[in-house]
């Protein structure tokens, strides 16, 4: 009478499989429309162009699975780029030291938001919204202009890439993103911390009653999200070789869209890092299609993302509904017949 583990695994993976199918279908459509689309070079550019988004999406996945939301990540990216530009160009920090300092600042920022959410029992939405305004405001305070970064490390890192032939280059930002995705998968799916994140999203009170340190886990989740936003900021500054207080406006919403398209439930408890990665790639794919076309307005990317979001949310509700159908009676017999 056991339900086969394979079947239950399939049910859990359903949203991610759907996202994968959409990505493959999208890629095939693009390739059919533009013969030179299906190349390693386009794929590698997809990774590079969306590296910063992929990194924040991993952090956002943890936050959303735990039942929260982090609206501050876009502002944190903006703040990070401005801070780096000033630190390296004006204050004479060596770039690596500047990276360490900004990551530490971001960690403190995220921990503070997590602590406020936990101890003042405030909704994450409001707390991180405040964090969003705060980080954006401080970056304007630092500088309102776009500051180019001319440090050697930056030009060196920009050139450094693994050449894959056919003009395809695996760049440093892409490598960082892939490493973060892999690391995020391990942390979320294979550690105690990851299980606690899921448990928080399933039932916060129950998690506390099971003896899990809920405050520590909450603080850790928002710290992780802010640190990854800081890392995304570093990658963004590498990508643009500049710091600007208006950079990455609205990226938090792109990240949330990627996470949801990737099959993570906004109400928490269910989701996969890999799905969010695919969600980022799907958004990138839409952008790339529009730039290939040349005549389409870039706003079509927003429209397509919006439609995809609707479709995925509807699909999730449907699968959830099917998965939660009561299976009481057959289960019963199992319990009774056992020794």
């Amino acid at each position, binding site marked *: 009478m056991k339900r086969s*583990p394979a079947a239950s695994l399939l049910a859990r993976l359903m949203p991610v499989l759907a996202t994968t199918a959409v990505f493959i279908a999208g890629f095939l459509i693009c390739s059919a429309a533009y013969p030179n689309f299906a190349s390693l070079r386009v794929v590698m550019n997809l990774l590079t162009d969306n590296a910063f988004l992929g990194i924040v999406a991993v952090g956002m996945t943890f936050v959303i699975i735990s039942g929260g939301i982090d609206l501050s990540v876009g502002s944190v990216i903006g703040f990070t780029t401005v801070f780096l530009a000033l630190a390296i160009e004006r204050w004479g920090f060596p770039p690596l030291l500047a990276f360490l300092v900004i990551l530490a600042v971001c960690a403190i920022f995220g921990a503070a938001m997590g602590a406020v959410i936990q101890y003042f029992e405030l909704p994450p939405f409001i707390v991180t919204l405040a964090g969003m305004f705060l980080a954006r405001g401080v970056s304007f305070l630092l500088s309102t202009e776009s500051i180019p970064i001319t440090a050697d490390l930056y030009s060196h890192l920009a050139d450094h890439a693994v050449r894959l032939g056919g003009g395809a280059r695996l760049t440093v930002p892409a490598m960082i993103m892939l490493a973060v995705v892999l690391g995020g998968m391990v942390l979320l799916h294979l550690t105690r911390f990851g299980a606690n994140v899921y*448990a928080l999203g399933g039932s916060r009170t129950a*998690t506390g*009653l099971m003896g899990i340190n809920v405050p520590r886990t909450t603080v850790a989740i928002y710290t992780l999200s802010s640190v990854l936003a800081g890392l995304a900021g570093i990658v963004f500054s590498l990508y643009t070789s500049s710091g600007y207080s208006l950079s990455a406006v609205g990226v938090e919403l792109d990240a949330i869209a990627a996470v949801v398209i990737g099959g993570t439930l906004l109400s928490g408890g269910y989701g996969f890092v890999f799905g969010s990665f695919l969600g980022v790639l799907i958004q990138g794919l839409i952008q790339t299609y529009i730039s290939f076309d040349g005549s389409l307005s870039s706003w079509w990317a927003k429209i397509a993302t919006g439609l995809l979001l609707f479709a995925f949310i509807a699909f999730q509700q449907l699968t959830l509904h099917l998965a939660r159908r009561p299976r009481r009676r057959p289960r019963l017999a199992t*319990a009774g017949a056992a020794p």
Partner: protein
Amino acid sequence: MQSPDPLAAPAATADPSPPLLDVAGFSKSFAGFVALDGVNFTLRHGEIHALLGENGAGKSTLIKAMTGVVQRDGGTLHLEGEEIAPRSAAEALKAGIATVYQEVNLAPNLSVAQNLFLGRQPTRFGLVREREMRRRAEALLYEFGLAIDVGAPLESYSVAIQHIVAIARAVDQSARVLILDEPTASLDAHEVEVLFAVMRQLTARGIGIVFVTHFLDQVYAVCDRITVLRNGRLAGTAPIAALPRIELVKLMLGRELSRATSARPMASAASVEPPVAVFEGYGKAGYVAPFDLSLHAGHVVGLAGLLGSGRTETVRLVFGAEKADCGTARAGEGAVAVGSPREAMRLGFGYCPEERKTEGIVAELSVRENIVLALQARRGPLRPLSRREQDEIAAKFIRLLDIRPPDPSRPIGLLSGGNQQKALLARWLATVPRLLILDEPTRGIDVGAHAEIIKLIRDLCAEGMAMLVVSSELEELVTYADEVVVLRDRAHVARLRGEEISVPSILAAIAEAPASAALPA
């Protein structure tokens, strides 16, 4: 302090070995309300001890005080002779006292294995050893007679299995005392049997179980001793064999057979009056067994039974707050559907629920606004009551029911329980109902207000209103009811009329063992 209780003393001296858990003189007050008053409770190794009592008896406060969820005002707690003072559920668990609540406190989205081992999963290099964890989970559940896929999410299993998983988790964390708070409320007969088998198996290992339930049959099926609380005090403790059903019911309700019958007038005219509403074969599977009920003008029908026996469920069906799935309802001439409270209100039904705080009053709104709420709802948003009409209605009922303080603009949440109850009554009286349903109208209100509410019920009835009243206060029912329906295990089991109505006859009907020992299915 419990010396006057004859049942407690012999039970305590009969066993020379030190008890597993010893609660002595627990007291707890909430803002002046005494929830526990010097309660003693002992749990022995390997026994299943039923903790019983009606609503507000102090069961849940006692459990929360034992597990550190609320801090007691006085008393000591010893676990195997050692004094402990847990300050949270986690600390109590560490000490060896685990609680499994009716709503399973596990993460429904995680796998069964993760739920069993959350926070203490086997790891290597910081990574959870999934296969090892599943192996251990399977081995652990096998001891409880469960062979299930531990990799599947918990929510894909029935509540019974979720309960067993919660128990297994607690026991595996070396719990010596297991508190089961109404675990059977949502289980069917077969699932209850499975749970009982698990409980018996645990007692064989020396674990002591505190079992809270409403189902007396289950108490007699599985428990060794019974402790009854009433109004925050210990009403008695006794081995199961020394406490027959009728004595137990008396302990729970606090009634003595001697102070019994009140001579009551036979309401002869009532049955001649045309019925306001008639329900035939009305019921809902898994909620209340089908029943017949006819409600006449000027006639009070009382519903008696223990907590959880189906009284509130019956009135919720009658009022349409819950949809019946069988039977017919007739009001006036023809058949009607009472599928929602709106329809019930259109038929002239009014309902004062038991949970005044959560289902009745809107605490932030004024007395006036609370009173006109139902009338306004019935008129619809397009015909608003003018402020003057509202004032008139409020003033009239404040005067009529003597609501204090007589200030219609005061937020109702600031009134005493009795006055809130009167304002709720006023809300329905303002709609001039043909049938008024009251669920525990005198619960939690002081003695003076008690008498006033009872007088009100009689007066209203005399004016030709049909009434359906749920009450645990049997003496009250006896004084005003023309007919008493007795419920047990979610079925109407007896109907007493006129002279048949007395406290002993109601008690006897409640306590009567069902013909078959079958559990509620």
